[in-house]
């Protein structure tokens, strides 16, 4: 990747969109200190990514739920709390709160395989919310789900965003999803990975109804995203 | 396993370290006997080089030094005529023939059973539990009885030993091939159905090629086990020779170095056999465009 210069303000919902190989997941992983950059600097809350990771400043949601099959849902959500040393009572309270945020209360004693894909991913989000990190890093969390479930989870995520006032960095393949969810859209393209456009959304901040996707404002932003992708030669196929 | 290139250096270093540990252990373990020898001969103040040469040169040491073992193998292979009863190669040949015969029979039997289990539901439900249970029966325990019993009714020589090897090696092949022949996923099977392929065609064009990795993995396990079976069978049929017999006579006569030498020979044989199957695997799988596991 080259020439990526970006600021993310607190309380923003930033989407990274681009085709495979443009580096959006890599960029997210560098932010999470899961990979090292070869040059340049990143600071998170004024700290290096490593310091941010060690002080548990963010929650990460992967493409797959990555729940531990031998733990119940409540034990899965409690996993980071155990590692970070929270006491039993506080764990129980936080788990209940997180599951309520993602509308999974009542499923505490179930095992991951007993839940549908969408519910598993919601549990994974609950886990990322359990320990009060201000920043949420999400790597195509809804990519494996069908469109109807995806729509539902998109609107749930926005409600969550409005309620908890976190900062969210979100990687996606889907143009409607990026436009629907974000306050700022970063359009990227491959070979080399770079930023083609940064779009500040004019849609209202916070909760938005699903129908907003048929408004001219929405379509205009989507059009701009598509133009950005085209300019980065994202629509051409390569081996 | 990762590519050999990536592993060679660590493996070599670990082997070197093990060799060093062996020499140290040999020194420590042979020391008491050496001390007793010195006392008997009244020797004192032995220089270190002499001491090491002595402690690593005992004729019947508690733990032979590696070079003693290599020397023994050398003497008994290169240093002997091939037909001599003292030659390790002669004995290895006997064991090898029983192993190969058992292995081939076991693989064929295993393949046959796997195909039967695959295509006949009754056989599947009846046989599989018993096949798995059969492996908890220590067949090697029956080996003496089988050999002696067959001898008593006139079946001697290679066949009883091969029978043990067959029994031991068919199990990995059955289990592996049942898994392998069932490995094509539903989509691929459905595709064949849309071509109205017969059961035989589905077998030859889809199931059999898909099971190749499993076949070779099973055969590697099977051939190693067949060798063990042949060795153990030889323990009871001492007349016919073989590495197992040489091991037994060595142990009765307290010839420690010979025992280790025979073990080295058997280990080399096992390694050659497994590598041979591995080479066949690379050849077949490369022709099919697959990398070996």
């Amino acid at each position: 990747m080259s020439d990526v210069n970006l600021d993310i303000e607190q309380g923003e919902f930033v989407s990274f969109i681009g085709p495979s190989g443009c580096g959006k997941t890599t960029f997210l992983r560098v932010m999470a200190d899961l990979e090292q950059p070869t040059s340049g600097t990143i600071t998170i809350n004024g700290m290096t990514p490593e310091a941010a990771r060690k002080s548990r400043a963010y929650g990460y949601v992967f493409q797959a739920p990555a729940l531990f099959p031998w733990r119940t849902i409540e034990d899965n959500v409690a996993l980071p709390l155990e590692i970070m040393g929270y006491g039993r009572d506080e764990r129980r309270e936080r788990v209940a709160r997180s599951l309520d945020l993602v509308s999974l209360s009542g499923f505490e004693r179930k095992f991951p395989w007993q839940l549908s894909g969408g519910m598993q991913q919601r549990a994974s989000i609950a886990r990322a919310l359990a320990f009060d990190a201000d920043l949420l890093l999400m790597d195509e969390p809804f990519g494996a789900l069908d469109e109807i479930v995806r729509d539902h989870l998109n609107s749930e995520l926005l409600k969550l965003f409005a309620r908890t006032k976190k900062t969210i960095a979100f990687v996606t393949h889907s143009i409607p999803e990026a436009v629907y969810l974000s306050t700022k859209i970063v359009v990227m393209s491959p070979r080399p990975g770079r930023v083609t456009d940064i779009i500040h959304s004019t849609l209202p901040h916070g909760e938005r109804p699903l129908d907003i996707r048929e408004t001219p404002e929405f379509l205009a932003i989507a059009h701009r995203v598509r133009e950005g992708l085209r300019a980065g030669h994202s629509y051409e196929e390569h081996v | 396993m990762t590519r050999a290139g990536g592993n060679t250096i660590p493996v070599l270093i670990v082997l070197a370290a093990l060799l060093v540990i062996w020499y140290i252990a040999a020194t420590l373990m042979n020391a008491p006997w050496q001390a007793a020898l010195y006392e008997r001969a009244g020797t004192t103040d032995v220089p270190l080089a002499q001491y090491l040469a002595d402690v690593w040169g005992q004729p019947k040491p508690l733990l032979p030094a590696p070079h003693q073992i290599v020397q023994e193998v050398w003497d008994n292979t290169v240093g002997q005529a091939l037909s001599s009863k003292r030659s390790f190669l002669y004995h290895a040949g006997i064991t090898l023939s029983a192993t190969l015969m058992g292995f081939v029979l076991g693989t064929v039997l295993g393949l046959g059973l796997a195909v039967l289990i695959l295509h006949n539901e009754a056989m599947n439900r009846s046989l599989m539990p018993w096949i798995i249970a059969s492996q908890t029966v220590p067949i090697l325990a029956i080996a003496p009885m089988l050999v002696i019993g067959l001898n008593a009714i006139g079946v001697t020589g290679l066949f009883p030993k091969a029978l043990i090897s067959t029994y031991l090696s068919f199990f990995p092949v059955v289990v592996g091939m049942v898994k392998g022949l069932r490995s094509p996923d539903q989509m691929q099977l459905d595709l064949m159905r849309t071509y109205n392929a017969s059961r035989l065609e589905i077998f030859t064009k889809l199931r059999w090629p898909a099971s190749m990795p499993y076949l070779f993995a099973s055969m590697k396990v099977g051939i190693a086990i067949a060798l063990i079976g042949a060795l153990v069978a030889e323990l009871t049929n001492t007349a016919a020779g073989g590495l197992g017999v040489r091991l037994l006579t060595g142990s009765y006569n307290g010839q420690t170095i010979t025992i280790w030498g025979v073990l080295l020979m058997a280990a080399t044989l096992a390694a050659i056999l497994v590598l041979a199957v591995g080479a066949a695997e690379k050849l077949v799988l490369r022709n099919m465009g697959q990398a070996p596991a």
Partner: protein
Amino acid sequence: MSNWQRILAIVAGVAATLGALLVAGAAATHLWLVVFGVAGALSLLRFAVNVRPRVDGLLAGFGGLTLLASLGEVGPSLWLALLATWLFAWLFIDRLAQQLARGETAAPGLGLVVPLAFGLTLLLLWEVAVRGLGVPQVLLPAPSQIYARIISSGPTLWADFQQTFLKAVLAGYLLGCASGFAVAILVDRSQFLRRGLLPIGNFVSALPIIGIAPIMVMWFGFDWPSKAAVIVCITFFPMLVNTVAGLNASGRMERDLMRTYASGYGQTLFKLRLPAAWPFIFNALKINSTLALIGAIVAEFFGTPIVGMGFRISTEAGRLNVDVVWAEVAVAAVAGSATYGLIVLVERAVTFWHPSVRGGRA
């Protein structure tokens, strides 16, 4: 019913009837055979009336009893009855298996009936064939003879079992598996050690380690510690290789997840990598249980005080007391299967979450 099943049914029914007819003259002394023959004749009615598989099962069972009761007199009717019983059993197994596969019947435990029926049929055929044909005991004794020997030699068998299983096998198995596990954890911390040790471990697993037995006898004496030492050598490597494989089985995503929590080595080991490794570890435990028993018995071929299963087998085989050998083998088989079954039960409890256990296929 398929064509093949029809043929089986006809032959079975006719054979039973024929067998009864041949002794019809002395019906009083051959009551079992006659009743069985009548039942067999009635079974031919299946071509008119639908008959459930369990009827075939009952016919086979009754045939078995008939055979056992009629072993006094060997003649063509016995063999006909044997043929009929075998075919009825075959029909039963075949039809039940088909029903289970099509999902037409599904009672819990019905799945066990098929292999059990198969096993019982084999046992029956074995008994009748050996007794009826007069097979020399040296080659193959009948199950009833083996059973009689087990009962009569009880104390000897128990002493042998104590020596071999309770002392050598248990000690060697526990020590070998524990050390394999411990070394795997140690090796886990060093990428270098893992790359160096693992190929060697794989290689050594394939070697005839049983050959170490005479050396162990030399080092540890004739008694059970030397056998336990052999078992330690045999079980160490599969445990090491499998545990290392298991520790690396946790997915990349899950390990990244732990990294985002700034989880330490110990926390990651106990919360993620060890739980994920259990399926592999149990695989090794199962393999090792069979290897341990075999190892102990074969190691005893190389020298042992005058007690022990391997000792008994090799000496009695030499004296052609084959029934004692079979009795020892039967005890070993039961011990081996029971241990294996126990491990499987524990495995199901610990790895309840694994797809292979969840899907109901072991």
